[in-house]
């Protein structure tokens, strides 16, 4: 009996240790909206991948059915003004949106994180210069500058991504700067400094991992902003050029035919709205999961 009692005492009394990430994952899974959003986005990625190799019809083939044909069993979403299959074009459009959204955020990370870390950690004149530049960029109207940039560089997917990064990098830089600003006063950074950590190790080995939560949230919420941006540009005719379909330019073509072929505007509009919504719900969910205190 005595031995048994010892065994029982050996059981840990404190709750099981959970890391920040698995804790966040558990909270995210409980958030039903974020979960549905994740499922939808997975589906979207699959659609975009499938459309690389297969679409119901060739996406730029003209006259596969009547022009302005309403949805039917052969063409689930109908056809556009040139008789192209809308579903095929919508599927290819998903590629454009995802490439723009994810591509810009990767570049924004590459630009904004180092700048923010440097400014926030070293402060002084470097921080003043960076803050001034950030404020100047906040003072210029982003979409208008992007329009002019695409106009100057020539409309292509690459140039659109560059234009969005140039006009939106400072969101990330400002966030990371703020994080570095507060983290640098914490004990573990002081310990690292006392242990003689080199600057690169300090910035990317100690500061960056501890600011990762807010950075992930910011990047996730930046994706829909970038997709929206591209849709605006394409809607105005300065975005992705035909025959490549973009949801924005498809909506623009649909508006012209809104009286007799409303399906042309409805399909890309719903696709765009659902995608933006999913990214926003996922971003909100991640924020709640990674930082429970900020819960609204």
């Amino acid at each position, binding site marked *: 009996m005595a031995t048994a009692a010892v065994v029982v005492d050996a059981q840990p009394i404190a709750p099981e240790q959970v890391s920040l990430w698995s804790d966040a994952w558990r909270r995210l899974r409980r958030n039903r*909206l974020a979960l549905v959003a994740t499922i939808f986005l997975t589906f979207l990625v699959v659609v975009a991948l499938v459309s690389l190799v297969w679409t119901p019809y060739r996406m730029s083939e003209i006259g596969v059915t009547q022009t302005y044909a309403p949805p039917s069993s052969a063409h689930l979403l109908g056809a556009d003004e040139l008789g192209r299959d809308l579903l095929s074009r919508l599927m290819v459009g998903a590629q454009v949106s995802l490439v723009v959204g994810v591509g810009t955020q990767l570049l924004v990370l590459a630009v904004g994180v180092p700048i923010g870390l440097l400014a926030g950690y070293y402060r002084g004149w470097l921080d003043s210069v960076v803050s001034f530049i950030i404020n*100047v960029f906040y*003072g*210029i*109207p*982003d*979409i*208008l*500058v992007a*329009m*002019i940039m695409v*106009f*100057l560089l020539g409309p292509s997917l690459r140039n659109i991504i560059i234009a969005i990064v140039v006009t939106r990098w400072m969101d990330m830089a400002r966030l990371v700067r703020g994080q570095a600003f507060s983290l640098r006063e914490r004990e573990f950074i002081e310990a690292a400094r006392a242990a003689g950590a080199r600057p690169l190790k300090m910035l990317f080995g100690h500061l960056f991992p501890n600011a990762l939560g807010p950075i992930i949230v910011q990047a996730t919420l930046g994706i*829909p902003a970038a997709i*929206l941006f591209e*849709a*605006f540009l394409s*809607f*105005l*005719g*300065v975005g992705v050029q035909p025959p490549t379909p973009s949801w*924005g330019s498809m*909506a*623009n073509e*649909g*508006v012209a035919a*809104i*009286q007799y072929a*409303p399906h042309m*505007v*409805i399909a890309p*509009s719903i696709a*765009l*709205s659902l995608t*933006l*919504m999913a990214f*926003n*719900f996922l971003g*909100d969910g991640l924020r709640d999961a990674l930082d429970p205190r900020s819960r*609204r």
Partner: protein
Amino acid sequence: MFTKGTLIYIAQRLVLIGFTVVAVSSVVFVGIHRLPGDALLSERLRGQAYQLLVHHYGLDQPLIVQYWNFAVGVITRGDLGESLVNRGLKITPLVLHELGVSAEVGGLALVFTIGLGLVLGVFAAVRQNTWLDYVLTTTSVVGYSMPNFVIAAFLILVFGVWLQNVTGGTFFYQLGGWRGDFGQLWLPAFALGFPYASIVARLTRASMLEVIRQDYIRTARAKGLRERVIIVRHALRNALIPVITILAPLVIGIITGSVVIENFFGIPGLGKEFAQSILNRDYAIVIGVFTMYAAMVGLANLLVDLAYVVIDPRIRY
């Protein structure tokens, strides 16, 4: 209210705005003139006629001289030059007229944004964790996830196409011409303002929830004030301060959003001019309108910052 320090601050900001406008328009000016060819190549003119035109617009002078002439014209006479496509059309009066049209649409959009946002936000906060709150909070994410042209398309589809018999389908301004009355204004203004109204609603709800738990609200309740007085006069007034912080991005968002909405509805404003002149490659107008926009955004930022001083006496510059 405006101390000497505030005045100095305003002066500094004005200098900074001037600096930004000059910098931004210079970049655009140089960028555009570095493009291969010139705007007049498309005219299919040859020989002397072409030379005369090039000379008329001063395009045969060195870039630096062209820029100097442009800058002097803007600063001394407020003259933004002449359209390259519609020859002889002066840009300054055109742009000023269009600014008026855009201001009407944008102003009404701002009224929608703030009015709708505040009302929905307060309702959601007062009824926290009821079905009304959930519906309003979810709608607000839906609201700011929808591009304004999508909202506009659905509004037109409902009111202009499906309900054509009721409304007369008068939302297609391209057909009827622009009159600028409320009947034509409300739809584009709503589409322009709604996404931002969602953001205002979210923020109002959050800051109301914070304020409502404060001691002075409990004091107001203890005094026996009516709930409506407590919410409107005591809580909302203080909940407004964080909302004002997003006014600047809001105004800028409405200015940039108007480019899309004006093109959508065919409203003859600054935004339509901007997109059209880019598509027409009318460089002179692109530079002119863009300079105008840069100045407007700068001034909007400044005005919002000054609004803090008026609303919250604790803020001083």
